């Protein structure tokens, strides 16, 4: 099993969710995060003092899936989250060794 973690632009969430649903992935977890990267931040001005704010709001999506689904999931997310503008985000894939569904105690594949 793998866990795919994607950092995306906030307003792309619905599209990514839909894309994943289309390929049969029906569970995911979303976290509000702040990202730092190449994308330029913005300036904030408070009483004449300027602050450069370099952390930008992003969403982190985590999806646990069967290993064979990885390419499809990557494609689905990439396509849905892409604007072509700097700051579109990243996808990282790692392994998970066990999975459990708390409600039923089901394990691994059945738990996803």
């Amino acid at each position, binding site marked *: 099993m793998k866990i795919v973690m994607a950092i995306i632009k906030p*307003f792309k969430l*619905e599209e990514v969710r839909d894309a994943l649903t289309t390929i049969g992935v029906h569970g995911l977890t979303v976290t509000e995060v702040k990202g730092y990267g190449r994308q330029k931040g*913005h*300036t*904030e*001005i*408070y009483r004449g003092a*300027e602050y450069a704010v370099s952390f930008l709001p992003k969403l982190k999506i985590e999806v646990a899936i069967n290993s064979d689904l990885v390419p499809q999931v990557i494609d689905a997310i990439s396509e849905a989250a892409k604007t072509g503008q700097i700051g579109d985000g990243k996808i990282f894939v790692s392994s998970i060794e066990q999975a459990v569904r708390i409600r039923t105690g089901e394990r691994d594949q059945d738990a996803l």
Partner: protein
Amino acid sequence: MKLRSMLSLGLAGLGTALTSVAVLAADAPAAPVPNKGDTAWMLISTVLVLLMTIPGLALFYGGLVRTKNMLSVLSQVFAIVALVAILWVVFGYSLAFTPSAIGDYVGGLDKLFLKGVTVDSVVATFSNGVVIPELVYVVFQMTFACITPALIVGAFAERIRFSAVLVFVTLWVTFIYFPIAHMVWYWAGPDAIADAAKLLAAATDDAAKAAAQTKLDAVMADAGLAFQWGALDFAGGTVVHINAGIAGLVGAIMIGKRVGYGRELMAPHSLTMTMVGASLLWVGWFGFNAGSNLEAGGGAVLAMVNTFVATAAATLSWLFTEWMAKGKPTLLGMVSGAVAGLVAVTPASGFAGPMGAIVLGLLVSPVCYFFVSTVKNTLKYDDSLDVFGVHCVGGIIGALATGILVNPALGGVGIADYAMKPGELSVADYDMATVMLAQLKAVALTLVWSGVGSAILYKITDMLVGLRVSPEAEREGLDITEHDERAYNY
């Protein structure tokens, strides 16, 4: 000098009526001085209308937008108050409340920079022999001029340029608000009429009678267009709500829909703030409506009672309408109903009786609900905060209902006739067709003047500074892109 208008018709039987009146014109009575109770009430009413606007309206609107646009809404409302306050004392008051200079459409330039307005000048109220300091009238009316354009910005919230707001509002108050305030609210006041009527009554020979009649006619004609029609608008149903509401609709359509409108969830970022704003609107609206009586007397009290119960009734009727339609009683529904009720009772507040006000409140909410939930979706315009559906629609209902509820037979106070028994308040006979015609004409006048005029002014503004931000800016939010600030840093 606002309302308690007199239908011009009411003057029909005047000639006869006056002959029986004692002649008093000769001995000029001492000029009336303001009563401190009235002055205190007008001062506090002014404060209340400011409270309605900032923070009231700003929070009501601000809570309904997304976090990223919160400050843009607060900024627009705050800036409008400051801007219009200055425009008002510089030329607005003069355009609105000096004798008509162009047709009966707008006042003149005699009081530019408040020229001639001193601590001792006084203006008329709706009672004979009762005056208030002119400066308190200036500042009270100023708050009306400030809030009206601030209402408009809700219609195109989340996508307008800040500079466009400043330019548009400057143009709009100049060409739309000041004239309409003049047309609906400017008149010579009860004592001027009484004096002229007394002269007429005192006239003994035909020449004198003719001269006096001419004089009286002139006094009656020293009023704005809609006032002369006999249109009733106690506290601003046409001048404020229909006026702003139609301008909002035109703006929403011309500027276009928000990016993502209809697809993305655009949930209010803080209904808490919206509730606070709605509550302050309710609280402050007593200054707006009861203050429009210009005196701390029975009329103000009646306006307060009407404002309270109409709002309560409209709150409940929106609540139950939505509960039945959608299955849940919502807070946003209640506060929307409250505002609809406040809007509807505004023109009627000094004219209707409490039970009439309750009926008005019960009726307005379902209609507004229908507009904001069904009509808007069907016609697919993006009036972000339902300025049209609540203020324009609610204002029209209120304006028309005023014509009905003023009827003493329905508990209303009737229409004042200041000429019938000069110096005393008499109530003219109620004639529904006449009154309703006047109301309809005033509504139509406002819709056309403000609708067409605003369209032109949006166009000009667009050419000057551009109306709308870029789609990227809209995505990121106006707070950062237009103001370099964020509302919250938790």
